[in-house]
């Protein structure tokens, strides 16, 4: 089971990085989303996969019978998903505004902030 997850994580990372090295900022943001999902699945996988054993404590007992699934990685992923959602929503609005202002989604057209202005002032 772990090997399937490992391959999926690797695929998500590869696809995310491939998209990020493209020149289009839309692809870059999608790449970031894939990278975030890859990281979440990675946490899930390295936190040990335990299928069908929720960490419930049986009636009359004070602790769960091992092996049980570790709930902490899932709590971490939940937090990371919420943060990722907020950040990606912001990034989507940002690329829309950039497209409206610059008229292109090509990062090569967005060089006014790191080239020397030819004596003129910033737009």
């Amino acid at each position, binding site marked *: 089971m772990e090997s399937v997850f490992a391959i999926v994580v690797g695929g998500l990372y590869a696809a995310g990085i491939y998209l990020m090295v493209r020149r289009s900022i839309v692809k870059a943001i999608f790449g970031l989303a894939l990278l975030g999902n890859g990281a979440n699945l990675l946490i899930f996988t390295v936190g040990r996969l335990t299928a069908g054993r929720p960490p419930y404590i049986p009636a009359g007992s004070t602790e769960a019978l091992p092996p049980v699934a570790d709930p902490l990685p899932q709590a*971490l992923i939940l937090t990371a998903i919420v943060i990722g959602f907020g950040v990606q929503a*912001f990034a989507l609005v940002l690329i829309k505004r950039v497209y409206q*202002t610059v008229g292109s989604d090509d990062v090569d057209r967005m060089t006014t902030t790191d080239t020397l202005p030819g004596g003129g002032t910033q*737009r």
Partner: protein
Amino acid sequence: MNSLLFMPLLIPLMAAVAGTLAWKRPDLQKLMGVCGTAALLASGVMLLVDVRRGGVLSVQSGSWAVPFGISLVADLFSAIMVTVAGAIGLAVAVYSLSDTKPEYEQLGYHPLIQILLLGVCGSFLTGDIFNLYVWFEVMLIASFVLLALGGKRSHLEAAIKYVVLNLIASALFLAAVGILYGVAGTLNMADLARLLREAPNNGPIPVIAILFLVAFGIKAAVFPLFFWLPASYHTAPIAVTTIFSALLTKVGVYALIRIFTLIFVQELEAWQPFILAAAGFTMAAGVLGAVAQFEIRRLLSFHIVSQIGYLIMGLGLLTRMSLAGTIFFMIHVIAAKSALFLITGIVRRMAGTTELKELGGLYCRRPFVAGMFLVSALALAGIPPLSGFWAKLALVWAGIATGHYMVTAAALLVSILTLFSMTKIWSEAFWKEAPAGENRTHFPVSTLSTASLWLMAVPAALLTLTTVAMGLMPEPFYALCMEAADQLLQPTAYISAVLGVVI
């Protein structure tokens, strides 16, 4: 008294909430900003006094037993950083009273500064590595919005570079945290430190350490991961650039120092040549980039990168002297660089531009402002008797004592080039004749009233005085930094304060 640890988090949070409730009242938001940051500074000072007297403070939020809950920890290094964050927050809040455009205020500029400070203080105080990720994200989202708030082409272009690079760093950080949990089974930094000291590390620990190094290296703008910083920082309003330069990259450096002195000490020792080389190249790349610039904000942005190199050098050398020097350098560079940025804001208001070729003759118009600039600039370059001299002396001393001559030579050479950059700004903006003829025609008439000049000049003057005081009386500051360095090198006090056991 451990509830004192929550104050640096609650104060900016409450100021931000109050400012958001008073959405249509920028006057109230300004008041909240100044009061909130003043209270933050006061709580930082109280925390510092408490930690110095009573040792490392720790509290478990929600009373969850360690290591299951989120710990908040303050050792001397954290307390110093919280105090510095409060001081810079107050300086920027006062400066913003007179130099904030109405369109920024309508979009919640003042509450956003408080949220940024919340994220920064949270990063300094947390004792849980996943919680550190969450505070980083709080800080980042506030900085994203502050950077893009202007809505002009330059702001949006800067924001897209800043956002993408920082999100890549966050994804790496998150992956590293996940793998670390899988290997060690805990996220509490003190518990991790104990586990990795008891069992000699093996397996993926070095890989995890390098993932952290790259993630925090991007955030701290370490060579070769610094390109986003000079491309984005200079577009924002001066007050925003000041607080970014003072705190955001320094949080990255703080996280590097914390993780690598507490948890991954062995990996730091193994990778020492690499880290020192990165430090040397960071210094050189920053200062050489600055040489080509003729706009004050771009020039100073490159110098942020250059100064980060000195901080990383102190971490890489890993001796008592070098860590104390790093902490001293951190306080010095935050004060001096913030003063320089705030003075740049005054220059911009006086002359209507920050292009060196169009400036000139400002010494005649405001000798006081020119004097402040000169003192801060010489402090940054490291001229005795100002603070930068003592900071660099400690680092150079530590470098020679441990036999790392290459990086020491780089540090000295970069100091000279820094001095060259600073004299360039001085002679172009303040000393030479104001350019005559057609260049002057597009200068807007200076609308700077005396009252608003004072509101902008007082924070800059106080920061300049800090560098002078640190230069003339380095002894008490050094004593404090030495104690902080001892706590970093001997983390038993940190570990036992958090875990509640003597090891």
